[in-house]
């Protein structure tokens, strides 16, 4: 077992609306990533995956607020740290972020190199411009970006170049954890593949030590990450290795997610696509019991009354459903 880079215990964060209502978008989420590993988080729009990405960084902007739980990066618990301290020593340095809208992530009126200088100076004010330039040239080269890019403004770069520039800037300080929030969802399939390949490369070269990849496309994760977590209505509903999650999902929601997309693997070609009926619950008033019950084919009366705990049924394999694994396997077999 490798060194644990990021461990999150029972993290809960909430949005406070302007009418002072609490919306728990991340509800008691626990996860663990070892050095050199990557974790994928999948789920529908609005399930809380992007909020989880923001929450994991340990620095909160209104309307997002921290409620409880621990975030431990390489043995250091950052949940108790002062926000300014987190910003100065953790953000960008230990834990880095690639935003959903990488296209607009760069200040339109600033040269790329000036921004790189600002990022590095935020953590190491003494570094000279020359050192920073050399560092940037080297890292940009790894991502296939020529040094000229540094002298350009964001508007002068193509979409793919902007994307790579953002990845290069995010990882320039070699963070221990990289959180990529749908970095490829705005790109076409070829560019998506390239982004993923580059992120893998960064990890192999040791520029990043671990990675969290957030997406709504489960099969994309299969090619990218070691483990996959499926999120529904702010909670983790199933966790496992990428292969198991794609080919042997246990939770009815993960099963539904896999059934609603085409996996370009042998044996899955003949499968008929099926949509999951209904919409996710409003997190302002989450339903009692299992949050997926209203959309679940296999829901019983108890599902709607009792809270369902996370159940571990094999090493590293977890799901959140009142049914046994055997029962679920049986009904899935019957349905097919």
């Amino acid at each position, binding site marked *: 077992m490798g060194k644990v880079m990021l461990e999150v215990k029972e993290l809960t964060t909430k949005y406070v609306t302007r009418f002072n209502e609490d919306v728990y978008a991340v509800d008691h989420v626990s996860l663990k990533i070892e050095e050199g590993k990557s974790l994928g988080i999948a789920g529908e729009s609005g399930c809380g995956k992007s909020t989880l990405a923001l929450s994991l960084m340990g620095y909160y902007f209104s309307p997002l607020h921290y409620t409880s739980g621990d975030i431990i990066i390489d043995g250091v618990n950052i949940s108790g740290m002062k926000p300014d301290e987190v910003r100065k020593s953790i953000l960008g340095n230990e834990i880095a972020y690639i935003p959903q809208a990488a296209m607009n992530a760069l200040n339109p009126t600033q040269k790329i190199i000036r921004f790189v200088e600002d990022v590095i100076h*935020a953590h190491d004010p003494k570094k000279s411009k020359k050192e920073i330039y050399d560092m940037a040239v080297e890292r940009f080269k790894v991502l296939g970006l020529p040094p000229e890019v540094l002298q350009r403004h964001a508007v002068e770069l193509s979409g793919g170049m902007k994307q790579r520039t953002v990845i290069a800037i995010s990882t320039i300080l070699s963070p221990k954890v990289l959180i990529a929030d749908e970095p490829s969802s705005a790109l076409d399939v070829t560019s998506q593949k390239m982004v993923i390949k580059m992120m893998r490369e960064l990890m192999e070269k040791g520029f990043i030590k671990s990675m969290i990849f957030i997406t709504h496309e489960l099969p994309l994760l299969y090619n990218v990450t070691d483990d996959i977590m499926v999120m529904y209505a702010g909670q983790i509903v199933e966790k496992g290795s990428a292969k198991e999650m794609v080919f042997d999902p246990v939770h009815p929601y993960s099963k539904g997610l896999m059934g609603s997309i085409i996996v370009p693997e042998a044996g899955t070609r003949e499968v008929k696509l099926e949509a999951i009926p209904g919409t996710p619950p409003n997190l302002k008033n989450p339903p009692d019991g299992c949050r997926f019950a209203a959309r679940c084919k296999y829901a019983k009366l108890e599902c709607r009354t009792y809270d369902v705990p996370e159940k571990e049924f094999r090493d590293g394999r977890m799901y959140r459903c009142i049914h046994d694994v055997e029962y679920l396997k049986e009904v899935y077999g019957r349905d097919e």
Partner: protein
Amino acid sequence: MKGYVKYYGQKVAWYVLTLIIAVALNFFLPRMMPGDPVRAIVNEATTGMTNASAIQQIEQQYYERFGLDKSLPEQFLTYVGNLFKGDLGTSFTQYPRPVTDVIGESVIWTLALQIPAILVGWFIGNILGAVAAYLRKGFDKAVMPLFMFLSNMPAFGMAIIMVWVFAVTLKIAPLSGGYGYDLLPSFTPEFIVSLISHYALPFFSIILITIGGQAIGMRSMSIYELNADYVKYSRFLGIKDRKIIGYVFRNAMLPQVTGLALSLGTMIGGNIVAETIFSYPGIGTTLLAGITGGDYPLISGSTLIITLMVLVANLVIEILYGVIDPRVKAAQQDS
């Protein structure tokens, strides 16, 4: 570089075309006004004279002197020809002073009043708007309605209120004029004090209105920029708020620069009424005098100066914009 030349070449061509049309309109429109300026001047000059043929002769002389005996197209050609020599003709009402003289004297008053007032108002307005956007809450709620009120106040309305409060009721400022009517322009302390006290009211009335408009624009631009993706991204890379605010305000300023250009360009025309209320000896007052007296060359000259200022201000801002905004620069190079 080639793109630039082409871009500005096209721009300048458009500006020249605009100027040509403006010159024509400036010439013909005043001359379509009802009334005969010469008749009024002659009436005044010949008060007490009874000899009808002599009056007729004087009238004829004036027509010839002003060139009004020729046809309009002929007059226009002479006018354009003189323009190239920098000659705007002779004023009817202040005969025999050349129009360039009359305008040159009044334009200085206008520029000296408006440029400082607009610049100061623009700076204060932008700072207040940015602070309101950043602080929100109490400060924002307190000053925003005030800005709204100020920005929607027409210049003459503000001028009337200022005159009423400070000159009529409180009697701490003079009622009108550019300096005391009993003084002659000179470098004496007495004259300078009088100059400043006459300057205050129109100056502050312009500043207040400018502050209101600029603050509202800056506030909404800043709020928009504060929520931009690059702000979020910069924060999550650990960059300090102070630095990020630097990015935000630089970007929020860009449209404000256009606002500055527009107010500088239109300052003369836009404040004719305010100048009239304060009887400030600027170009607005001169233009008004020209219109009431049917002084065609003076009207054409004044409006030509206003047109030129608007065009020059726009062109300068266009060039400046390319320097400060790389997006505009890229667009200019591409054309």
